[in-house]
């Protein structure tokens, strides 16, 4: 797997080269060059903001197709709890899980159950006193990637527990082996997800050496198929077992609420997350012990690969979860939920490896920036004037990419031509 594999990619044919995504990208990873957007791989954190804001639907997430199921003898769907809020008038999780069987899966395993295990282990870790004063949730991979490129000082604050999907994958495989007697490799585990960042993390894991998931399927891609199956009248088989807390992880605040004690902040939306992380860095949140930070508006329920409006889905999930027991998930798994590898600082914002050279480049940037109009119009293809100045120094752009600079230059040139031609006549 290449180091910077990404689920988020561009559909070149659909891209009109506008500046919508350019402006919104939280890590300034997008440039428009030759009339098309380009994603700088090193900088992309797969938050999917560009997917949500592109009016031409030119940004997409690469996920697997349902045909991948054919590679396995026994196929298990692992639906993220966000799926439960997607269908109008459906407040019965069982109906949705049964619909998954209707589109080709042999069984389901709710990711919400993995979330419950994560909650239990988080509580234990907090009690053990081994964590920092402020613990930041590790559930959202886009936020983790953001921290690794922009907040190196907060790496130690991140909860060193694997994401619910990896825990669920382990449990699901064990269960499937027990049920079928098949060997592990004959069993295909498919994550039904709202999230490109998680799709990336399956192929290119952050905290495990290798993911336990065999394929990632976007909620969008199976939405219609599932919707057709849900309305069938056959009484649903009972496949549902996750409780209130696990299911509530779909909405922002769900994970923090499940901890049942300590003061917390639950923040959603990548730009809001950045603000809160800044506050943690400045040591200004002293009475807070837990921070749940999710890149998407509303939490995973607002993931870029969902269909339903996130406010609508949120209220539906609340209704659905209300009916579920608040019992603690007690099933114990003999699985190491702790990170297999530490998160590392990824200094991609560096201008140069050598500080001395970097300083020179920075003052160069400053000089160029002072000569730019400061309109941040984006016409040059960089998200801001400051960024263009940086791109110029990084040899990724030139000053005349700025249309105002170009105009200036053309004017001077034509003036010079005028004088020259006068000289000719004289």
């Amino acid at each position, binding site marked *: 797997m290449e180091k910077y594999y990404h689920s988020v990619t561009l559909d070149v044919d659909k891209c009109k080269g506008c500046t919508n995504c350019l402006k919104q990208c939280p890590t300034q990873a997008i440039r428009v060059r030759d009339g098309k957007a380009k994603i700088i791989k090193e900088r992309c954190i797969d938050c999917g903001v560009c997917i949500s804001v592109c009016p031409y639907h030119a940004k997409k997430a690469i996920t697997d197709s349902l045909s991948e199921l054919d590679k396995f003898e026994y196929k298990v769907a692992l639906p993220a709890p966000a799926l439960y809020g997607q269908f109008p008038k459906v407040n019965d999780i069982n109906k949705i899980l049964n619909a998954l069987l209707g589109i080709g899966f042999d069984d389901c395993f709710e990711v919400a159950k993995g979330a419950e295990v994560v909650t239990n282990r988080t509580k234990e870790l907090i009690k053990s006193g081994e964590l920092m004063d402020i613990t930041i949730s590790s559930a959202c991979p886009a936020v983790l990637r953001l921290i690794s490129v922009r907040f190196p000082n907060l790496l130690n604050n991140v909860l060193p527990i694997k994401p619910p999907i990896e825990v669920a994958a382990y449990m699901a495989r064990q269960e499937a082996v027990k049920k079928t007697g098949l060997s592990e490799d004959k069993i295909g585990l498919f994550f039904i997800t709202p999230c490109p960042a998680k799709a990336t993390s399956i192929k290119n894991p952050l905290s495990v050496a290798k993911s336990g998931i065999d394929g990632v399927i976007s909620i969008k891609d199976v939405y219609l198929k599932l919707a057709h199956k849900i309305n069938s009248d056959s009484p649903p088989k009972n496949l549902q077992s996750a409780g209130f807390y696990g299911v509530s992880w779909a909405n922002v605040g769900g994970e923090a609420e499940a901890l049942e004690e300590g003061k917390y902040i639950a923040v959603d939306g990548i730009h809001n997350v950045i603000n809160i992380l800044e506050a943690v860095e400045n040591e200004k949140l002293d009475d807070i012990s837990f921070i749940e930070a999710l890149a998407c508006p509303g939490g995973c329920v607002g993931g870029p690969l969902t269909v339903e409006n996130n406010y609508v889905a949120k209220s539906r999930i609340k209704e659905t979860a209300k009916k579920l027991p608040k019992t603690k998930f007690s099933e114990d798994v003999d699985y190491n939920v702790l990170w297999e590898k530490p998160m590392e600082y990824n200094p991609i914002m560096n*201008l140069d490896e050598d500080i*001395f050279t970097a300083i020179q480049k920075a003052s160069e940037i400053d000089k160029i920036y002072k000569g730019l109009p400061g309109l941040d119009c984006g016409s040059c293809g960089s998200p801001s004037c400051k960024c263009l100045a940086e791109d110029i120094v990084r040899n990724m752009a030139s000053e005349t990419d700025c249309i105002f600079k170009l105009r200036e230059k053309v004017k001077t040139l034509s003036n010079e031509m005028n004088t020259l031609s006068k000289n000719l006549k004289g």
Partner: protein
Amino acid sequence: MDKSIVLKYDVDGNDFSLAGEASSSVKKVLLSLGFDPEIIRKVSIALYEGEMNMVIHANGGVITVEISPEEIHMLLEDTGPGIEDIELAMQEGYSTASDKVRELGFGAGMGLSNMKKYSDVFIITSEVNKGTRVEMVVKNKQ
């Protein structure tokens, strides 16, 4: 050839929502220059506290930061009310912050002592009704 880079910020004393912008910007620059995260942490906390003091107690001021491979030099100057008894102000827990400011989460009286703690050089001078000048240096570990 420039051996250092100088950043200058006018800190607005009237708009509390802008407070913290200078230290946040310096932090970004230090990241792009490749400084060690630990150094960046010291600078950003010290500077943030100084910036906040300017906004809360002195109605704004000017911050000048000079960054070289050896050290980060910070100068904070304001023309606010000044500090009568610096020794007292430096004490942990001493604060003249109003209740209003305390409601916003400030006024624990920890700012100045943290600035001293996180910097390698810390010099504060002040004159009542004239203003306050704080000079801080964080040395880069080589």
